[in-house]
């Protein structure tokens, strides 16, 4: 079958003629406003999943007054099905450090932190050494910016930016009310840029190659490329950097095992797309956006088990702070179990769908708000598998 899927090599590309430090040197000769304009022009949106325009985030933080500001790299990659940040941290950490330093220069921050999930502590030994070399290189250049590591301790919700700040401040990882947004009051209530690992690498690479090359990839709504974590029923699981805006059927042709029943796009909190919708689903901000998690299920899999696993995950990882999420996750899980056992009629699933609507409006953070994504897309497309 014909396939137009375009593989890209930006994130992991190693160019001996232009190291991340050389990109940094080159970039710091430019004005902060020019760098921001380039980022806005490139169309880069956050690669963690939420997709906020990176250039604007930097601009808002730059516009805040105050001497103390922070740059934080969100390396609390916990979304089921995602493992790209671990690979990036392992293979090209200097590109992350360079992106953070450029950001520090642009917004006027002197400290940067990488919040690494506790599950990735085994990376620390190697990373600390590389970070020390990088910090020394900054010192030698008289650049007033230093980067530090902070470790998480096994809490999915800390990937939510305000919960991450709470955790760094020694508190329970409970999300804050917004506004204020991090650009105004983030870590230690100071203006903070918080970017995903992959986003920071793209900022370095856009500074290196210019916005035009980046913009030439993808579609008008989804500029550039993105690293995808491919897992599940596929003969070739792993990390792939692909152009954004691809139709899902092309992805399935490339990665499926010939018997693909559904793809969960965007991890446990994302959407489940059944085979009949592969043709008209676009992977990108105009279709289904994703932090990169692509889990493939073939016809041997029970979608009830898949949904059950996701709901168990959310029930355990809900921080418990707000009632809609804490109670909602539990009731959804109990609810599908009751329908499966025949203790509740199939129509009860529609009541549960209404509950996800309440959670979407009333839950405090993205965790509770997005549980309806997998729930409704699996119930709507695989209702018979949930009931029988």
């Amino acid at each position, binding site marked *: 079958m014909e396939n137009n899927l375009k593989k890209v090599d930006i994130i992991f590309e190693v160019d001996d003629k232009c190291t991340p430090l050389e990109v940094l040197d080159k970039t710091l000769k430019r004005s902060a406003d020019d760098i921001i304009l380039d980022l806005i022009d490139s169309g880069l949106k956050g690669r963690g999943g939420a997709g906020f325009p990176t250039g604007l985030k930097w601009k808002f933080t730059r516009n805040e007054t105050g001497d103390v500001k922070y740059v934080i790299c969100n390396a609390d990659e916990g979304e089921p099905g995602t493992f790209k940040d671990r690979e990036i941290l392992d293979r090209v950490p200097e590109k992350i450090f360079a992106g953070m330093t450029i950001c520090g220069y642009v917004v006027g921050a002197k400290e940067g932190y990488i919040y690494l999930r*506790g599950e990735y502590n085994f990376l620390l030994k190697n990373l600390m050494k590389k970070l020390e070399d990088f910090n020394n290189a900054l010192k030698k250049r008289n650049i007033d910016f230093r980067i530090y590591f902070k470790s998480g301790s096994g809490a999915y919700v800390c990937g939510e930016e305000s919960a991450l700040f709470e955790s760094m401040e020694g508190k329970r990882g409970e999300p804050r009310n917004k506004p204020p947004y991090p650009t105004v009051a983030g870590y230690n209530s100071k203006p903070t840029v918080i970017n995903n690992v992959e986003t920071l690498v793209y900022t370095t690479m856009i500074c290196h190659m210019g916005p035009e090359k980046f913009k030439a990839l993808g579609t008008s709504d989804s500029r550039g490329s993105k690293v995808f974590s491919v897992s599940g029923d596929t003969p070739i699981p792993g990390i792939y950097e692909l152009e954004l805006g691809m139709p899902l059927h092309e992805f399935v042709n490339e990665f499926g095992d010939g018997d693909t029943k559904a793809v969960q796009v965007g991890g446990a909190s994302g959407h489940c797309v059944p085979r009949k919708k592969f043709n008209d689903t676009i992977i990108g901000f105009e279709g289904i956006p994703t932090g990169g998690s692509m*889990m493939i299920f073939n016809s041997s899999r029970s979608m009830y088990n898949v949904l059950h696993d996701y709901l168990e995950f959310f029930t355990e990882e809900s921080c418990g702070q707000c009632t809609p999420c804490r109670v909602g996750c539990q009731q959804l899980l109990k609810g599908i179990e009751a329908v499966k056992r025949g203790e509740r009629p199939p129509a009860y699933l529609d009541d549960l769908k209404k509950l996800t609507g309440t959670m979407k409006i009333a839950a405090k953070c993205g965790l509770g708000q997005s549980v309806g994504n997998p729930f409704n897309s699996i119930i709507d497309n695989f209702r018979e598998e949930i009931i029988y």
Partner: protein
Amino acid sequence: MLTTEALVKELVEKNGRNRNSLMPVLQGIVQQEHYLSEEALLCVAKELDLAAADVYGTASFYTFLDTVPRGKNIIRVCKTITCHMKGKDEIINTLSNALKIKVGETTHDKKFTLLTANCLGWCHKGPVMLINDEVYPELTPQKALEIVEEYAKSTH
């Protein structure tokens, strides 16, 4: 080995005497003592000038900050969907039989605790487990058993 009090003082000294140091201090204690005892939590509260309830509140929030005694080696088998599809149940059953403990329990000699964990970020190479900070992807029941036996030999 340091007493708990000395360990807490050392960690506070190293990380700074403020609330922002709470996580690294608690993480440091878990690394040495495998869990946070009541004594340790009270010591931290005193050293950082925080309410004990605050310290316990933070500690009890995080999966990796255990407040019940754990073995020297903590095994965490990933149970999330792709590892589930690749056979994490067999891994758990094999380890459970070999160590003669259920998930959540610790062996009598205090060498091992067997736990499950949510997604560890190795979905392309499942099933996977962590033992302390080390990661072991692409497991088979046999491979998992051999790895745990190695730990048994080297732990006194």
